[in-house]
């Protein structure tokens, strides 16, 4: 059966968005020179020129002109009709061309934004950062586009540990943009996480309290992870473990591989309580899902586990 044997020829290097996946690297931060306030200003959409109304006005003007000048002679009438028809056709054609050009510009911006989103998912941080800087350096064609670009930008800033700027962008979005409840909730979680990283514990606790009052908060794995982090950071390991035990399935189902973060934090909680065996198992589970270096980058508090528990080894290729 030839078609069975030919499965070995299935490609593994897929053609999409022009780049192939690589092992993620973090270069020296490309965002160090980003002026966040300037980008927030530059990306504001500019008022649109009301071409349609101008076209309608031109059409009415031509119709009135035609009426006023008509009736002098048959030749003048014919000439006037021809001029008016050509002018109307010109106005309509120009309007169509402007519309088509506008739609193409919007589509191009959205394609670049989608590419930036994919770069973020693939952890190609430098490319994503530069793409978003270019997009935010010019006026956005639409407000929803700008909102989405700024959400991605806040993720990049947090990734490069520019937490103050990430919080500034998130608060700008929460205060000034119309967000759907789900997006606002996700942004709130990101902001509270950045506050915890900045040791702004009081602000983070207040933000978490606000998030808990949102509809559906009890079913949020992201909020559960945030609360576990807060409890581990503030020295409340028992509470962290309680949340984990209660919301384990939620964390697993919603966070995917990021549930490794929860395991890492629970390892620290058990370690604080002297539960060595549970801590060892939790470190094993955490490092099965997430490389140890990445866990330490996200949660510096886990540094205290280094050297005391062995990460799960990855098999040799």
């Amino acid at each position, binding site marked *: 059966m030839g078609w069975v044997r030919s499965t*070995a020829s299935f490609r593994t290097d897929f053609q999409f968005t022009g780049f192939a996946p690589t092992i993620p690297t973090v270069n020296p931060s490309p965002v160090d020179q980003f002026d966040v306030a300037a980008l927030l200003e530059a990306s504001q959409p500019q008022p649109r020129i009301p071409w349609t109304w101008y076209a309608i006005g031109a059409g009415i003007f031509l119709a009135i002109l035609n009426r006023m000048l008509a009736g002098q002679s048959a030749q003048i009438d014919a000439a006037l009709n021809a001029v008016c028809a050509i002018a109307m056709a010109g106005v309509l054609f120009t309007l169509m061309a402007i519309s088509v050009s506008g739609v193409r510009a919007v589509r191009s911006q959205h394609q670049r934004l989608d590419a930036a989103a994919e770069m973020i998912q693939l952890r190609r941080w430098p490319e994503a950062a530069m793409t978003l800087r270019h997009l935010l350096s010019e006026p956005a064609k639409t407000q929803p586009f700008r909102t989405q670009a700024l959400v991605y930008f806040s993720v990049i800033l947090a990734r490069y540990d520019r937490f103050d700027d990430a919080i500034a962008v998130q608060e700008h979005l929460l205060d000034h943009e119309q967000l759907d409840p789900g997006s606002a909730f996700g942004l709130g979680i990101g902001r509270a996480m950045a506050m915890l990283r900045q040791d702004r514990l009081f602000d983070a606790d207040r933000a978490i309290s606000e998030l808990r009052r949102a509809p559906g908060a009890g079913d949020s794995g992201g909020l559960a992870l945030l609360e576990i982090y807060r409890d581990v950071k503030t020295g409340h390991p028992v509470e962290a473990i309680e949340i984990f035990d209660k919301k384990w399935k939620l964390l697993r189902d919603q966070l995917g591989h990021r549930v490794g973060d929860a395991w890492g934090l629970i390892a620290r909680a058990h370690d604080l309580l002297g539960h060595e065996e549970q801590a060892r198992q939790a470190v094993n589970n955490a490092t099965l899902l997430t490389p140890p270096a990445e866990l330490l980058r996200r949660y510096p508090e886990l540094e205290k586990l280094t050297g005391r528990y062995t990460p799960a080894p990855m098999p040799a290729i």
Partner: protein
Amino acid sequence: MLTAEAAIHRTRRDLMLGIALKVLMPLAVFGCFLVGSESLRLFMLFGVIGGWVALGLSSVRRAQLVAMSPSLIAAGRFEEAEQQIDQAILAFSPFSAAKLRPLHHLALLRHAQRRWQETALLCRELLGHRRNVLRGLSNPARLILTDALLEMGDVRGAYDALTILHREKMSLAEILHLTLLQLDYSARIGAWRSMVENMPGKLQFVELMPTDAAALAQALLGLAARKLGREDWAKWLGDRARLLADAQPLMDQRPMLRELWNSDAPGAGQG
């Protein structure tokens, strides 16, 4: 509730009517300049254009309504989604995209309901249209067609669909779906060696998948590793899969996975 056959029949009928209208429309506009007095011509012209604009606005309103149905399907609210989709399919629109999109959503719904025969029927109907008419529906339809064919045991049909998909330009989400389908297909035909080729690259994709898909993909990779005698990889991948999903439902879904876990000592779990 519309059956797949009824939905297809209705869509085909409306597409034919839409084509007829698109041919008659310029003729009607031209005819307005030939018949009757000047005021009657103007009245007829406004009537024709106004009718076309009304049809367009109605299509846009229905498209906005049915745009919610994928979210409803993802949330498990199948009855609500079915109602919206049925309304959109039964309503007339002269625009092909407005008729094909609800059909695609019906295929998504049947796929979520695990009604594979109807899913395959609807996807094949969609894929029978020209690419420029499908407008971004071609890849998603072919992906769920492949999944349905695999579930129905039509491995040859799935292979044909996979071959076409590998030539297409795809988004990241589509690539992730395709990766899982390719692993599933390879496992069903016992192509274990091809499954473990380029493991680091595949794992990078697998880690981006939704939880259930990531668990299944890693379980299948673990089974392939076991078949090739790589017990270290089999255990590592099996343990990762069990951290993401319960083993029993995965084994119920893919009985071949019993070989991966039934011979394992208790490994990773809830600690």
